[in-house]
């Protein structure tokens, strides 16, 4: 296990040169080598989804991906979600408005899960949203407020994306 690799990761638009063992998961690497601890590990076997990040736009469990597999990919984590000036992303704002978090441990995973899905399909209906949200586990909220928040954010994001209707 002593062989290590120098790899370059692109995370939230920044470049990270890191030295990893081949067995290091992307999640561990983001947390330990890149210092991005917003990505959380809840199970390390791909069920809970707390570690969800976007890899080339697709929501992925970062505990099930090795860091050495994603060289050259664009990775997005929760730290890249808000504007540089601190303005919250509509998803973050909606989670706050609708009490979509309690302990907040699973929250980054839900935010990234929803972000990836809404970029792919901004017009998800409630049933599709429930199906999506069922990908991850939350132990505090009972999901109701997460669904409400993602619905509200989806509506907000769609309204933002469309030009204002003609008077």
């Amino acid at each position, binding site marked *: *296990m*002593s062989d290590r690799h120098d790899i370059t990761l692109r995370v939230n638009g920044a470049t990270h040169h890191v030295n990893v*063992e081949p*067995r290091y998961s992307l999640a561990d690497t983001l*947390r*330990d080598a890149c210092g*991005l*601890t*917003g*990505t*959380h*590990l*809840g*199970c*390390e*076997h791909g*069920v*809970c989804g*707390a570690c969800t990040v976007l890899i080339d736009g697709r929501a992925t469990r970062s505990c099930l991906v090795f860091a050495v597999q994603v060289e050259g990919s664009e990775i997005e*984590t*929760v*730290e890249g*979600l*808000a504007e540089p000036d601190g303005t*919250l992303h509509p998803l*973050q704002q909606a*989670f*706050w*408005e609708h*009490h979509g*978090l*309690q*302990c*907040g*441990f*699973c*929250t*980054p995973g839900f*935010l990234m899960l929803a972000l990836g899905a809404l970029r792919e399909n901004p017009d998800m209906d409630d049933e599709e949203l*429930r*199906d999506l*949200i*069922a*990908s*991850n*586990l*939350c*132990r*505090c*909220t*009972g*999901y*109701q*407020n*997460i*669904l409400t928040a993602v619905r509200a954010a989806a509506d907000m994001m769609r309204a933002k994306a469309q030009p204002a209707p003609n008077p």
Partner: protein
Amino acid sequence: MSVIGARERRVEDRPLLIGAGVFVADLNRADQIHMRVVRSPLAFGRLLEIDIEDAAAQPGVVAIWTAADLGDLGPIDFRMTRIEGMEPYRQWCLARDYVRYVGDPVAVVFAETAQRAEDAAELVFCDIDEQDPHLDARAEPVAFAPDVSPELMSEPAVLQKAVGDVDAAFGQAAHEVAIEVRVGRHTGVPLETRGALAVPGEGGTVTMYGAAKVPHYNRGQIARMLGLPLDAVQLSEGHVGGGFGIRGELYPEDVLVCRAALAFGRPVKWIEDRREHLIAANHSRDQAYRLRAAVDPEGRVLGLDAQFFTDQGAYVRTHGATVSDLSAALLPGPYLIPAYRVRGHVRLTNKTPAGTYRAPGRYESTFARERLMDAIAARLGLDRAEVRQRNLVPESQMPFRRGLDALGTDVVYDSGRFHDLLERLCAHVSWDDLQERLAGRRKAGERVGVGLGYFVEKSGLGPDDLVRISVLPENGIRIVTGAASIGQGIETAMAQICADTLGTGLNGIDVVHGQTALIEKGMGAFATRATVMTGSATKMAADALIERALDVAATLLQAERASLSYADGTVHHAASERTLTLSEIAAAWDGGLGAEATFVSDHMTYPYGIHLAQVRVDPATCGVEIERFVVAYDIGRAVNPTLVEGQIVGAAAQGIGGALYEEFVYDEAGQPLAASFADYLMPTAQEVPAIETIVREDAPSPINPLGVKGAGEAGINAVGAAIASAVDDALERPGLVRQLPVTPQRLHAWLQE
């Protein structure tokens, strides 16, 4: 406008939303080493030898400890509900003589990286003389550690409580109704696993990060166990990824990281993985009840004779007999039941040790009691709401003294309008019409039904809480409390109570909790106590702060104290039209402006509620789908209705898990079969329906200055009871469900009977 009762957004959310939360795994210190626990692979056996040679030779290994390296380090003591004679059943930090469950810590490996520690741990070999495990708490007790103390049997305690003349009640009874029911083994399972980072300081001191729930108590215990003065140990709480009763209790790993940090003079970090969590952190529930009721011709319960068995697992951990004590005390719930007798057997088995999980002893006893009420209704041909209505404690008898104690306090229901809440719920769902509609659907071939569960909760366990409030000269207010945050929103709740009293906004109120270095005492956050206890202390401290501000302002303004008034963060002197804000007073006065208060309470407060479930059973798969779930709950007074509803809905989801999905199953050898999230099934958004909440403030608590009762456990209490009742109704088989969780396999087997 009153800030109490406002749906304020939480003050703690921003860092959690932007990935800036600081959970214990996020902390690192230069030169830290990592601890990995080697756990017993067998459920029961004599521990003969631990071979660490190969492991110790691995690169990066700093040290390996077994029990032999721990000297006279004692076992983990009871935090609550200590009963004479339970001491020999406590858990050592590392197993000695015997291993008693799969997951029992036998050694710890310290290495330069987490990966190295894990690699080396796999090479530690335990020579164990395997023996047949004891896995049924209802079976006759066996020897706890046969070769070492053959006289010590696996029943550490039997709790007995009684009130009234039970035998006389059975003598007068028109009907005798008996049931036997069980609640499966499941637990809190927070999304963040446990962890700790112990950092050595100057002069033999240590600070442990990753504290939760009861930092002050744990600090005292760690100091005592390591033979250190109290001042040498500090605990610090960061963000905590869910509590639910299990997290933050003192576990062997907490003591070991502190001891190691002191021994090696380096920071020591330990982060549990999920498999470890599911076999090592406290399990809960797992009780079997035998109930016998003496019933009059109208369905009133004259007497209740109860026996139950709590499967406490391998050892008695910090909670002592808490779960059994609460089960015994609150089994009668909202009903009069004038004569009651209970024997609660605390039994040990070769499973993971158990402690409390949200609504401990109530989720279980409510399930048992409400199954009994359904059985009485069925026997007498009464409507299920009607039989409950006939037995509820009437408002005229409040405060209602049960004549029993719970957690060392007399059980006195402080206030309640039990009948009124049942009427409101029945009106909300149109109970009679609903039953008719469901009967119609059943006639058309659907398996649909509705069920009820009525419960009394308890909250606000004393004895006291201290809060200090100081006004910062640069325009802010700081509340320091020994309470703890486990994600429940305590910062927002305390800030609202403070702002409401001071007449200020929430902005600028900073709530500091879980830091033993900043306040000398604190009870933490458990037993739904924080809003009642810490909230009341916050209210009193804020009141005292206003008085102090008036005192100081009188001197500063050279005015009569009586000529001053206070409103909205400002002292006014009407005669001179001069004003001083709180921060101006703090800046002008040598020593600043602050106040403190301690709220003391000998009694818990008792909120109450009803759960209603409507389910549909798929006859092909025996799967149960929840079509509708309603929680009616009287909280006395809601500090923040959004947070109260959030607590209720989240707890209800957990209750659904325990009612239908979650179960720690063991095979005959005592091997855990649910040690991953693939096997331990927690509900997802697909399994949890929209939960309707009816939050009432009809019966404020008379025993605290705010009138509040707690919210934490309301949503979970009667979920199992209500779902069981609904499944019975759907299948038109009263009494069919007698065990939780109602898995498809179990339901299928019952239907074959």
